[in-house]
């Protein structure tokens, strides 16, 4: 019975340049809600209902309008979203803060959001780009690589990450031969790959999206023989990558958020059972975003954002029992019993400082066309 259910907004870019990422992300968020509902809901039987809203990624004002509708008309108690930093910033400033609604973005990684005026209402399960820059730099150094080219997707995610990486890498003594942007969803990447190849480097760091310009760059680089080893940050690491380049990227490596807690694997299996690709970028983070909101409500004993915004950090972090995907029922029970949880989830969230993921990473490589996990950091 949906009546009296708690509504959660799922505001992602269902249409627009990143539309192909959105379904798996929404799938994640709804999977979490389904799991809680199956467990009998929170707060003594309150069920959850997802309300989708298109944040488009190309129109901050439309995103605002849509969020406005979610909040004031549908009366959602929290928002999982938005997807792109631009829309996220607009919704946060124009809707979430004035109306006092909690927002947990699974994918807005812009460091700028760290300092945004948020009244403690904004969280994200994706780590800020700054952290990942250091991780990449370390992994490359361990592989003895000192000379790389970087191609990033020309948005706040790509640019922020590329900048963060470049400063970290150069501080560690490495050389970035070229740090050039590519636009997503364009027809042709020969010019970009031509420039990257001319600049040279042992490895090409592709700070893009796997189902978009990132793969386009890799494809063109492989075909022309410009590079044969790549480094893949979180926007690229997924099963899809292996399918896109069967056997062609052996020896390439990368990392995405995750821990040895096995959460990622558990989530993947759940997603597969649910009929979508759990390895698609930011899908796991979306599951976690929804889960965090719901657990925070349970912990606060209230679905009012003003109350649960303060418990969100608590459920995400130690102390308490570590919670993995599929264990939401258990977590609710613990909270009900007055215990504490340390939600780790599918992407090993650890919220730090101003409410963003601290960033545990799972290091991977490709062998015989398969994605292989080689370690955690």
């Amino acid at each position, binding site marked *: 019975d949906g009546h009296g259910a708690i509504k959660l907004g799922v505001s992602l870019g*269902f*249409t*627009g340049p990143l*539309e192909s990422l*959105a*379904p798996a992300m929404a799938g994640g968020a709804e999977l979490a809600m389904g799991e809680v509902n199956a467990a009998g809901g929170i707060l003594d039987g309150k069920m959850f209902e997802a309300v*989708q*809203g*298109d944040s*488009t*990624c*190309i*129109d*901050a*004002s*439309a995103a*605002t*309008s*849509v969020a*406005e*509708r979610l*909040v*004031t*008309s549908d009366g959602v108690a929290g928002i999982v979203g938005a997807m*792109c*930093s*631009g*829309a996220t*910033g*607009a919704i946060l*400033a*124009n809707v979430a*803060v*004035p*109306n*006092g609604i909690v927002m947990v973005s699974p994918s807005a990684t*812009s*460091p*700028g959001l*760290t*300092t*945004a*005026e948020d*009244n403690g209402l904004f969280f994200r399960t994706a780590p800020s780009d*700054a952290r990942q820059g250091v991780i990449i730099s370390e992994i490359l150094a361990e592989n003895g690589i000192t000379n790389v080219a970087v191609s990033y997707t*020309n*948005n*706040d995610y*790509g*640019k*922020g990450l590329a*900048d*963060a990486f470049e400063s970290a890498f150069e501080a560690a003594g490495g050389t970035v031969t070229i740090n050039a*942007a590519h636009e997503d969803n364009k027809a042709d990447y020969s010019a970009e790959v031509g420039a990257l190849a001319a600049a040279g480097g042992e490895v090409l760091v592709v700070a893009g999206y796997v189902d978009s310009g990132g793969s386009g760059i890799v494809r063109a680089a492989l075909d022309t023989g410009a590079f044969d080893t790549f480094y893949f940050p979180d926007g690229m690491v997924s099963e899809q990558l292996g399918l896109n380049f069967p056997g062609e990227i052996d020896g390439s490596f990368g990392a995405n958020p995750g821990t040895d807690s096995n959460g990622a694997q558990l989530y993947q299996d759940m997603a597969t059972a649910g*009929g979508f690709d759990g390895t698609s970028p930011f899908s796991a983070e979306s599951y976690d975003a929804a889960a965090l909101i719901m657990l925070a409500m349970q912990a606060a004993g209230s679905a009012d954002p003003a109350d649960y915004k303060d418990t969100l950090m608590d459920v995400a972090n130690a102390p308490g029992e570590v919670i993995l995907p599929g264990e939401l029922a258990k977590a609710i029970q613990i909270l009900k019993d007055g215990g504490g949880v340390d939600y780790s989830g599918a992407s090993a969230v650890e919220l730090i400082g101003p409410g963003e993921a601290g960033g545990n990473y799972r290091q991977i490589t490709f062998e015989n066309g398969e994605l292989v996990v080689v370690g955690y950091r």
Partner: protein
Amino acid sequence: MIGSLFRGMTRRDLLLFAFVAVLYIGTAYVQSWNTVLGMVNLALISAIMALGVNMQWGYAGLLNVGVMGFVALGGLAAVLVSVPPTEEAVSAGGLQIVIALLLGAATVAAAVVAWGKMPPSRARGFAVAGILLVGFFVFRAVFDPAVARVEAVNPASTGYLGGLHLPVVISWPVGGLFAAGAAWIIGKSALRLRSDYLAIATLGISEIIIAILKNEDWLSRGVKNATGVPSPMPAAIDLQNDPSFVERVTAWGFDPVTASTISVKLGYMALFLAVLVALIWLTQMALNSPWGRMMRAIRDNEVAASAMGKDVTKRHLQIFILGSAVCGMAGAMLVTLDGQLTPGTYQPLRFTFLIWVMVIVGGSGNNWGSVLGGFLIYWLYIQVEPIGIWTMEMITSGMADGSWLKAHLLESAAHMRLLTMGVILLVVLRFSPRGLIPER
């Protein structure tokens, strides 16, 4: 005075406006006043953009498909006028960047002068190319290091020069000026192109403007987005924290959160409405006078108009600049409302094509048509999403749960947004090809 504002309005037009008003009010009851007021504000801005396009296309037949670029320039103005300067960045390279830009401008000016002064010959070609080339390298030599220094200043949150920290409303006319400046440059070179050639030229230029906004981080943080554009209204949250406000509205029986968000929106609405009314008055006056007649003549037949003593080039330039300035102003208003400049969101689909749809569906050549189109299409643009989802739920309601088709249909609901938009556009166009309020 008021009479000429509404000149040419018929009862049918009023009914159409009433219909759109009902759409909005109805939405308010089904959804909420907050949603609707937010939509109204954006519709007002869209209507202003549509007015600008209508001036160019409807009055003069200039096919400007670069609306997005002018809107973005207006947005840039909002940032440059209103945000506080980044002191550190300014002292690191502000002056040098300005010098570099002046050098660049001087180069172009020199090239233009040389082109004009020298007799047509191969030497002229080489001389101009030489000037441009040398100028380009000098420019880069001064510019690049300064930019590097500016962008190095705390790149994660600033890394740009910042603005003048003036009241943001000033940026509206300034946005108009920015756009007008760009329009002047474009107009001087590209306006002699005809129809679709002009269209693609403007489209190209708008893409170039966006490319600059995306890549010149020192200017407005590029794709990292410039946030924190101050609002001309008190923030809703401040109102909520203001005891006297809370007291007053609670006394009237309103919930403080709703009351505060609504009053902020009403404040914006008043500002935008004032701009729109002023613009309509100006354009109506111009259109219903010999000036308007002359523009129509030029649109009809340029050769004859010029034989009848009308300076076609000059008039085209005039209207192109004015129309673009209006779009620029709307762009500044938009960024003011959003509170941030996000270059990545400037997509032709939204800021060029959608505006065009507004103009054509409303009725090109008619100012009121543009306003109607602006409101109607914006409503659709936002509301087709729930309509699409609702339709899909209706369609699938009879199907067995868990069937493949049902899942697929529901999954596709988001795309019904575009589909519905298209269908409605086609239907409107079908039943009134000259627009809902045609030119008279």
